[in-house]
C-alpha cells in the first residue's frame, strides 16, 4: 500500500476513534446544566470579587438558580441587572439599600501616638504580628494600606494623613477590605447613614486619651443629647443606629473628641471653629 495512504488511514482512524470516544463520553457522562446559570452569569459583573461569599460570579449564579441566595445577592450588580436576574428565575426582588465601606478610625499621625518605629514588611497584617502593631492604640488603623491593595475596584486610596480614604462612587461594598484588615477598621454602612462614630476602641476613656486625641472615650454625651435615641454605648464605644438617626447633628457639636461626625468623615464645625 502507498505509504501516504497508510499514514492518512492511520491518523484518520485514530482521530475517528478519539472523536467517537469523546462523543460517547459526552452522552454517557452528560451533566445537565441549567441554562439560566449561564444567563445569570452574563448579567453579573464578572469581576469575581468574592463579595457575595462564593468562589466567583458563576458560582453565585448557580446558587441563585438553586434558590440558596436571593437574586440580588451580588453587591456590585446594577439595579437593572438585579431586576433582570429576578425576572429570569421568577422570584420577587427585595429592595436592599446600597452599602459602602467606611474607615472607622481617625487616628492619623498628628492625633494618635505610636509606640515604636515599624520598618518591617509594608503590610498591616505583618505589622499587627510585631508586638501588636506600632500604634499605641491597639484598635486603630495601622495605615500601611493593606485594604487599599485588596480593593479591586480602585475605590480606596491612602490619604495624606496616612489613613485610607473611600471613594463612595466606586465602592461596591464587596467587603474585600473588611475581610483583609487585621483590625476590622473598614466596615460596611448604609449609604444613607448620616452620623458615624469613627472609632473602634473598646478601651476606657482614660486609656483612649493616653494614646489618641480622636478616640471614643465612651463619655455618653452623644447618647444623652441624641433626640432620637439612636446612639448606644456598646462596650465603651458609641454606636449609631442608622435606622433611627436623622442627621440632626447635635452629637457632632457635643462629642468632646469630635469623633462622631457626618458620614462623609469631615471634622465637625465646632472643632474647625476652635482651631
Amino acid at each position: 500500500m502507498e505509504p501516504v495512504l497508510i499514514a492518512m488511514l492511520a491518523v484518520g482512524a485514530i482521530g475517528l476513534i478519539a472523536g467517537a470516544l469523546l462523543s460517547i463520553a459526552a452522552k454517557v457522562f452528560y451533566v445537565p446544566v441549567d441554562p439560566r446559570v449561564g444567563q445569570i452569569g452574563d448579567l453579573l459583573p464578572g469581576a469575581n470579587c468574592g463579595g457575595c461569599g462564593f468562589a466567583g460570579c458563576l458560582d453565585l449564579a448557580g446558587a441563585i438558580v438553586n434558590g440558596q441566595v436571593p437574586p440580588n445577592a451580588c453587591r456590585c450588580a446594577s439595579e437593572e441587572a438585579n431586576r433582570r436576574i429576578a425576572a429570569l428565575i421568577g422570584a420577587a426582588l427585595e429592595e436592599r439599600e446600597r452599602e459602602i465601606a467606611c474607615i472607622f478610625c481617625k487616628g492619623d499621625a498628628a492625633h494618635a501616638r505610636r509606640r515604636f518605629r515599624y520598618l518591617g514588611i509594608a503590610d498591616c497584617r505583618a505589622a499587627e504580628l510585631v508586638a501588636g502593631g506600632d500604634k499605641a492604640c491597639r484598635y486603630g488603623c495601622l495605615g500601611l494600606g493593606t485594604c487599599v491593595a485588596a480593593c479591586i475596584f480602585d475605590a480606596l486610596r491612602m490619604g495624606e494623613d496616612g489613613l485610607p480614604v473611600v471613594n463612595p462612587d466606586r465602592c461596591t461594598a464587596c467587603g474585600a477590605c473588611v475581610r483583609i484588615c487585621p483590625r476590622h477598621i473598614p466596615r460596611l454602612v448604609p449609604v444613607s447613614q448620616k452620623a458615624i462614630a469613627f472609632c473602634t476602641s473598646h478601651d476606657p476613656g482614660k486609656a483612649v486619651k493616653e494614646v489618641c486625641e480622636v478616640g471614643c472615650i465612651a463619655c455618653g454625651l452623644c447618647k444623652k443629647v441624641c433626640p432620637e435615641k439612636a446612639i448606644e454605648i456598646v462596650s465603651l464605644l458609641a454606636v449609631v443606629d442608622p435606622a433611627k438617626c436623622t442627621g440632626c447633628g447635635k452629637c457632632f457639636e457635643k462629642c468632646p473628641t469630635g469623633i462622631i461626625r457626618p458620614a462623609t468623615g469631615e471634622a465637625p464645625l465646632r472643632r474647625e471653629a476652635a482651631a
Partner: protein
Amino acid sequence: MQDYLLMIVAAVFINNIVLIRFMGNCPLVGVTSSMESAFGMGAAVVFVTTLAGTACWIVQRLVLEPLGIEYLQTLVFILIIASLVQFVEIVLQKTAPPLYRTLGIYLPLITTNCMVFGSSILNIKQDHTFMQTLVFSLASAVGFSLVLVFMAGLRERMEAAGKVPAALCGVPITLITAGMMGLSFAGLLGMAK
C-alpha cells in the same frame, strides 16, 4: 528497583522538566501567583501526564511502529493528549464534581501544555519500557509540580515583602526567579543521565 529509584530522582530533581529541559514555562509564570493554584495545576498535571504518557507509548508501540509511520508522532501525540484531556474533563465533571471544581479550570490549560507532550516524546526517545514510561511520566510531572509550588511560595513571599522595584513587579521578577532556580537545579546536572 534501584533503576526506578534513580529514574525518579533524575526526573524530579536532576533533569527537571521545567528548569533543565525548559518545558512548561507558561504555567510556571501563569498559575504561580498563589500557592492554591500552583497545587491545583500541579495535581492536574500529574494526573494528565501519567495518563497521556502511557497512552502515547501504547499508540507508538502498537500503531505507529508496526505501520512504519513514526514520523507522524508529533501529530498523533497531540491528538491523543488533547482528546484524553477532554475525556478526563467530561468524566470528572460527572463522576467527581469536587475534584472537577479543583482541577477543572486547569485541565483546558494542560491540553496544549508542552510539558505533557515533551515527557511523552522523551519516553519514546529514551526507549522506555511500559513500566518505565509510567514511572518517568509520573516523576516528570511531580518535578514540574514541585517547581510550580516552589515558585508560588517564593512569589507569595516576595509580594508580601513588597520590596520588588515597580519596574520588575509581576512577570519580570518571576522570570528572574525562574532563572535563579534553574541555576541552582543546574548544580545537580551530571549526577544522572
